[in-house]
């Protein structure tokens, strides 16, 4: 089950067979990886790349240097130009200026196929697999091994895929459909694809954003294996702990420019954050206890949904921030969705402000005073094609209605008010919300609910994929809401966030509440061991 060690002997064979598969369309370069790789040798160098989209200069001066056998971190706030740089390396964007040197030769990538041919593989945050094709076919699409008559040799394809998974130490079945794979396994398939390409450079764009801690460990095992085999890896993450755990060198970007590159060991997390934001963080996230806990605003009693969560009971007081911690898949989001009435539940009672919610429906929940900021803002939190002001007004339409109609002016007034309070950065309020950066989109979702003045706010992964500075703003905002008497239930996979923001911490594991900590008692170790089941004292 776990990623194990990798037998180095198999490696040459694997590459030879991968080469046999790829050579038919001429995209393979014949290099024995083991022979010409010395760790530290520069494999890829991007110098002074620039890219503009219309009037927006997404990348002004992007430079990065990747070496064989090294994991290189690329850091920067959202909007710093990381994604643009990645897409240039992927061949998706063609830079307006700058040079790309791969293994000593200057290359121009006309498209994704050219990047592949140059030995560059990109693994995106949201893996790009074909759910209707098999795992093996996903890895080899467009360059499946052939037999006579240019027909696909399925057996060979399957065997090559199995060999690669063996090398990575993961027990994936190459003949299964990609449909239904967990994000972590999808990434393994992508990594396998990169290996089958004999990629010298693997770019990983926020690969851990959607993974549980255990999955991250497994991914890192694979990454270390690749590193030891001489692959150059560019690793993008917002989680600095991960960067320090897995990377050797670091490049920091800010506002589309290269800020610095250096060996990671010379730096502390604070240095890097300072380099990213260009200033000291104005203040640390506020300590918990900002609000004064009052009467219960949300009470959940023995809530159960078959197969999802069992017998979950807790209370959130007004002015209190309660964190719901646990591994991805432990049932946290499912509980939140049930409270808000999106999913039905089989047993239990939800009480808001002393009022029982009779049936599961978001309308009832909203009327009772709950706001819900979902996990996936793009899919569930926002209507991406609608304007900023329409999105903000969406939850308050009833209140904005005058003579039965929604007037643009009242929409705008509401949106402008909240945009100013939350410091949302936008062009015009009538721009589609899709044009905003991730952090600002999240603020729009918050504004949407704050416009209703909720008594209870449920936030699911409120800072996922958001840059450091905006993250601090979101934390401050939550604290301010608590001060104003709102009860907040926060689901988060980031332990530092859980520890610094919340007054109380509930830990879920496999659908049950396993432990409860006060702010003072909590520690990362205690929470993790409860979440992983090493703590056997259920709280209730």
């Amino acid at each position, binding site marked *: 089950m776990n990623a194990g060690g990798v037998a180095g002997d198999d490696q040459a064979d694997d590459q030879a067979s991968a080469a046999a598969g790829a050579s038919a369309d001429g995209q393979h370069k014949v290099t024995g990886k083991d022979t010409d790789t010395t760790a530290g040798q520069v494999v890829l160098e991007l110098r002074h790349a620039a890219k503009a989209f219309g009037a927006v200069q997404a990348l002004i001066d992007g430079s990065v240097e990747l070496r064989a056998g090294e994991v290189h971190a690329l850091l920067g706030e959202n909007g710093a130009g990381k994604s643009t740089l990645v897409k240039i390396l992927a061949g998706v964007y063609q830079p307006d200026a700058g040079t790309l040197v791969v293994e000593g030769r200057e290359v121009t990538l006309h498209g994704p196929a050219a990047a592949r041919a140059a030995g560059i593989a990109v693994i995106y945050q949201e893996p790009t697999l074909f759910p209707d094709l098999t795992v093996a076919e996903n890895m080899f699409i467009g360059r499946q091994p052939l037999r006579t008559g240019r027909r696909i040799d399925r057996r060979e394809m*399957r065997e090559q895929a199995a060999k690669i998974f063996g090398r990575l130490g993961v027990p*994936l079945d190459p003949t299964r459909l990609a449909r*239904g794979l967990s994000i972590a396994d999808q990434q393994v398939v992508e990594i396998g694809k990169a290996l089958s390409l004999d990629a010298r450079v693997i770019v990983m764009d926020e690969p851990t954003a959607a993974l549980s801690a255990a999955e991250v460990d497994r991914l890192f095992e694979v990454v270390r294996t690749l590193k030891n085999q001489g692959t150059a890896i560019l690793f993008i993450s917002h989680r600095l702990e991960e960067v320090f755990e897995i990377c050797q060198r670091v490049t920091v970007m800010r506002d589309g420019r290269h800020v610095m590159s250096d060996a990671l060991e010379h730096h502390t997390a604070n240095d890097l954050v300072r380099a990213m934001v260009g200033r000291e963080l104005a203040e640390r996230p506020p300590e918990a206890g900002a609000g004064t806990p009052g009467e219960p605003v949300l009470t959940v009693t023995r809530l159960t949904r078959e197969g999802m969560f069992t017998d979950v009971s807790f209370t959130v007081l007004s002015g209190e921030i309660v964190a719901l911690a646990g591994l991805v898949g432990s049932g946290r989001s499912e509980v939140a969705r049930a409270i808000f009435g999106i999913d039905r539940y089989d047993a239990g009672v939800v009480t808001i402000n002393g009022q029982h919610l009779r049936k599961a429906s978001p309308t009832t929940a909203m009327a009772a005073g709950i706001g819900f900021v979902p996990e996936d803002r793009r899919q569930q939190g926002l209507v991406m094609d609608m304007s900023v002001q329409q999105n903000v007004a969406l939850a308050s339409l009833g209140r904005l209605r005058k003579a039965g109609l929604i007037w643009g002016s009242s929409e705008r007034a509401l949106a402008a008010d909240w945009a100013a309070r939350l410091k949302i950065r936008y062009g015009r309020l009538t721009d589609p919300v899709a044009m905003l950066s991730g952090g600002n989109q999240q603020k729009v979702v918050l504004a949407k609910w704050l416009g209703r003045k909720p008594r209870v706010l449920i936030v699911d992964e409120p800072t996922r994929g958001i840059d450091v500075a905006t993250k601090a703003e979101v934390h401050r905002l939550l604290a301010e809401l608590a001060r104003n008497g709102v009860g907040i239930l926060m689901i988060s996979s980031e332990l530092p966030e859980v520890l610094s923001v919340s007054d109380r911490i509930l830990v879920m594991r496999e659908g049950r509440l396993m432990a409860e900590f006060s702010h003072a008692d909590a520690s990362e170790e205690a929470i993790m061991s409860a979440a992983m089941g090493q703590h056997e004292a259920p709280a209730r």
Partner: protein
Amino acid sequence: MRATILNRRQHPPAHGNKSAIGNGQPQGPAKTRAGSLAERVFRIRESGIVVVLGVFVLVTAAIQPRFLNLTNIQFVLIDTTVFALLALGETMVVISRNVDLSIGSVLGLSAYASSNLFAVHPGINIALVFLTGMGIGLACGVVNGTMVAVGRVPSLVVTLATLYIIRGIDILLFSGKQVVEAELPSTFLDIPRSTIGGIPDLAIVIAAVIGAGAYYLRTYRSGRELYAIGSNPEAARLAGIPVGKRVFTAFAASGAIAGIAGVLWAAQYGTIDASAGTGYELQVVSAVVVGGVAIFGGSGSVIGAALGALLLATITTALYVLGISPFWDQAIWGFLLILAIALDQTITVRLTSALRKKRTRHE
């Protein structure tokens, strides 16, 4: 009068055709690992259609034994050939997450223009007539393909527009005229009528063509890439698949096939006017969906689509033989569509949850 003939047109074959198509199915060379969940599901999906078809044939024959006489079976088989051929082209387009609604109009234009050649140039080589029909279809397909692949206009809109435009051209050129059977050479009219051992030659040829199409989609890179494009277009682009080129080719092929189908249509009916094939595209799309091809692309097979065509055609003929009002025909087609979609939805949901659980390999 004409309307009746056109309606009868859409009958698919019964029983016999099934085996003909079955023979053309290339299972042999592509060695597939037995037990692969994906493969099993597709096989189950296709055998589901065969079962429904079998039940329908048996029930009909039990009520009216005349249904299974040779003439009737031949009639149904011939009727299915054009239908299944169009389903082949449509399947390639639908698999890539597109749709071609223009094929009925393309068929009409090709049917008239090609058969009109016999009237204008008596003694013309039949191969030349087929080439003309195919050329007309190809030209229409190229227009569709260009607008979808290069112009990035949704195919639903593009082909809805060309459905009207091509029919408009057809009517503009040929309205009020018609080609009659007497103007067509008997060698041409015999194409759908000659049989080997009671089975129409044409049905065998079309079954082989469909088999070849299925083999191509399964076994060649470009075929697999059509599935990939339909399964996740954005990923296809990132994987370096020439999405535009593949989609363009699918439309061109669908057009060319509709062109050929038009010529066959002319041979089959003998009397052609500017309204030939009106509304046929929706029947073909229905057959494709009933045959288990996902309407949003990515999965399904040509064999399934051909079986779908066979099933729908058989139902029409069965109702005719039983003397049931043609109204029921359309109602049953609609019912089958909903059934097929519900079934596919259930399969997808079940399959996804089954696959979620099955992470490790069982070897």
